[in-house]
């Protein structure tokens, strides 16, 4: 009887990551074959190469990469795994692109529960399948206890953009309209509600979602009328608008009364001393569009489940100072500034 290939199966209920799982030896191969392959299951990964080969479609290729260090790992509405899939799909999609493939690399801390790792991998696999964007290659490393915090994940995505579309942050022009795809601040507040030093009770869940379906509908509706899209993650809507103002050399005028913010988010921000405009989102986008396309764009967004609450929140204006200004619902006006310092560490 040939016993050379025998290995006791991983104890996915009570086992823990140890240093051998990153050693390049049999334990690592076993971790990959018993945790990641079943979770991600696709034809590229199952070939077991150090890379994945695929045919490049016609069009301009888009590539983006992101690291995920969110704490806690599991939160209402998602976990670090689904976040790592959605976040990178969204970054690729913001070019107006169709995301094609993802890669994923894991930095695991010695002692991390295999049950949690499996839960995260399964969640990633489900998110990738739902999005139709497979994880086709990856990597695993293990670091000593105390050198990481459970698990950190990096994902890279490639996609393709067609039809001469060239969205870029330097393309906003005066009179362009500014849209947001739905309620803002949900992700950041959901995370804060579970943090040890800020915990509070709320029924709010993260908005983490893959936006490429919505983006495809938007591209179909507004096409070359779209100037730029960006997903307001860390730093929130405030950071995105300030970035766009700087890069395009324009100002923004936002209407406070038009901002879609849930009462729970407003209340939590009052309590924690935060501005909802600076709080992270993981399933929302900001779009700047030529005025003549704004109406057809908003109608297309309303027809998609992730754009149901889309609304115009303001417009681009000429401003040599590149200020993002807001007309407050009280009747005054103020600047929307970047977030200062670090109020919400490790939000994604």
């Amino acid at each position: 009887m040939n016993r050379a290939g025998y290995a006791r199966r991983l104890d996915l209920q009570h086992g823990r990551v140890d240093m051998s799982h990153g050693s390049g030896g049999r334990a690592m191969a076993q971790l990959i074959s018993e945790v990641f392959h079943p979770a991600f299951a696709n034809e590229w990964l199952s070939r077991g190469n150090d890379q994945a080969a695929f045919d490049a479609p016609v069009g301009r290729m888009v590539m983006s990469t992101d690291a995920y260090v969110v704490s806690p790992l599991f939160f209402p509405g998602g976990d670090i795994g689904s976040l790592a899939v959605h976040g990178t799909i969204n970054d690729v999609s913001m070019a107006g692109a169709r995301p094609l493939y993802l890669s994923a690399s894991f930095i695991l801390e010695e002692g991390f529960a295999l049950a949690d790792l499996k839960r995260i991998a399964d969640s990633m696999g489900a998110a990738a399948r739902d999005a139709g964007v497979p994880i086709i290659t990856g990597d695993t490393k293990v670091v000593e206890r105390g050198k990481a915090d459970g698990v950190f994940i990096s994902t890279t995505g490639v996609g393709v953009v067609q039809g001469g579309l060239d969205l870029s942050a330097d393309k906003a022009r005066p009179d362009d309209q500014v849209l947001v795809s739905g309620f803002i601040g949900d992700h950041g507040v959901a995370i804060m509600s579970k943090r040890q030093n800020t915990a509070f009770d709320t029924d709010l869940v993260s908005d983490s979602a893959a936006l490429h379906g919505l983006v495809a509908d938007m591209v179909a509706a507004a096409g070359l009328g779209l100037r730029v899209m960006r997903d307001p993650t860390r730093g929130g809507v405030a950071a995105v608008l300030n970035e766009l103002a700087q890069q395009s050399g324009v100002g923004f005028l936002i209407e406070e009364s038009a901002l879609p913010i849930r009462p729970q988010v407003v209340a939590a921000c009052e309590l924690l001393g935060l501005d909802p405009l600076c709080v992270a989102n993981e399933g929302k986008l900001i779009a700047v569009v030529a005025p003549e396309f704004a109406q057809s764009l908003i109608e297309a967004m309303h027809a998609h489940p992730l754009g149901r609450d889309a609304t115009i929140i303001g417009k681009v204006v000429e401003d040599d100072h590149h200020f993002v200004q807001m007309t407050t619902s009280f009747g005054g006006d103020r600047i929307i500034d970047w977030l200062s310092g670090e109020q919400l560490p490790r939000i994604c």
Partner: protein
Amino acid sequence: MRFMHEFRDGELGRGICTTIAEACRPGRNYVFMEVCGGHTHTIARYGLEALLPAQVRLVHGPGCPVCVLPTGRIDGAIALARDQGVILCTYGDMMRVPGSHRTSLIQAKAAGADVRMVLSTLRALEIAKENPDRQVVFLGIGFETTSPATAIALKMARREALANFSVLCDHVLTPPAIQAVLGEGGEALQGLIAPGHVSAVIGTRPYQAFADRGQAVYVAGFEPLDILQAVLMLIRQVNEGRPRVENGYARALTEDGNLRAQAAIAETMPDLRSFEWRGLGVLPQSALQIGEAFADFDAERRFALTYAPAPDAKSCACADVIRGRRRPEECKLFGSVCTPDDPIGSCMVSNEGACAAHWRYGRHRPQRGGEASAAPAAA
């Protein structure tokens, strides 16, 4: 969202502004100080100054808790965190306040000190229980609003015999600060918008002394309508020539204040001490001191700390801003080398600091006329 949305109603606000304009007597100026940093923040965030007639001027007061801590106190806290191996817990605003050489607690943390931001003193107590082999120090700062929470922590620490917990007490009192501002040329001021949350603890009686000296006093909440209402009521008091203390924040406080909070402070921090304030100098009887009964939980005694004053950064006008003598944009560092991302002075750190509030919300607005300089400049 009760108590919030109805106090942010723009239409009501415009109505009050019309009434304010009608109440202003021709040829007469009205100069009021909003004492509290929370009010300064609301005024900047909602652009309230632009809604008021030119006759009405608001002067920023000394009521931002981190702004008034002098450089030497920041240095002391940084040294404690850096040199004594303690876990130093404090409120978020304190983390970025620059001490000498532009170092802050957040930089000390990056350099290896164990500094933790907490939202409550109870969390600091938990950290002490979670780390029985470490000394945990809560840096208690703020006016009467935050001192009750420190008092409760001291009581709980003693009850639970938490031998590894102590408090570095930098709690200060509001009335001596107002007194100091009025004492140095504040005669140009005609009224005070008194702080709502401080008053929720101490009540409204302590302001009677200022009314007796001719100041109109109106205790206000922190929403834009609260502030506009306060301005209107102060104008009416001035017009009537009958200064008195009025409570416009009855939804949160009474004349007597919170007796249980007062008792907790009196039990744990019964003694007043002389304290150096940024901008106001050394004020006698202006800060709380941990009492003998709680001496075991006093970080100053436990670590034999002594206070060493340190000069403010050169050219920084925080001292004048805190006294209401200069407006933020009159400081030559404002927005050039001093911004919320890289603050030089304490007023550029907290949302309640006058400089940070102006930078964050109002730097696009033109300065108001030639009257920009604050009232007590004549001092």
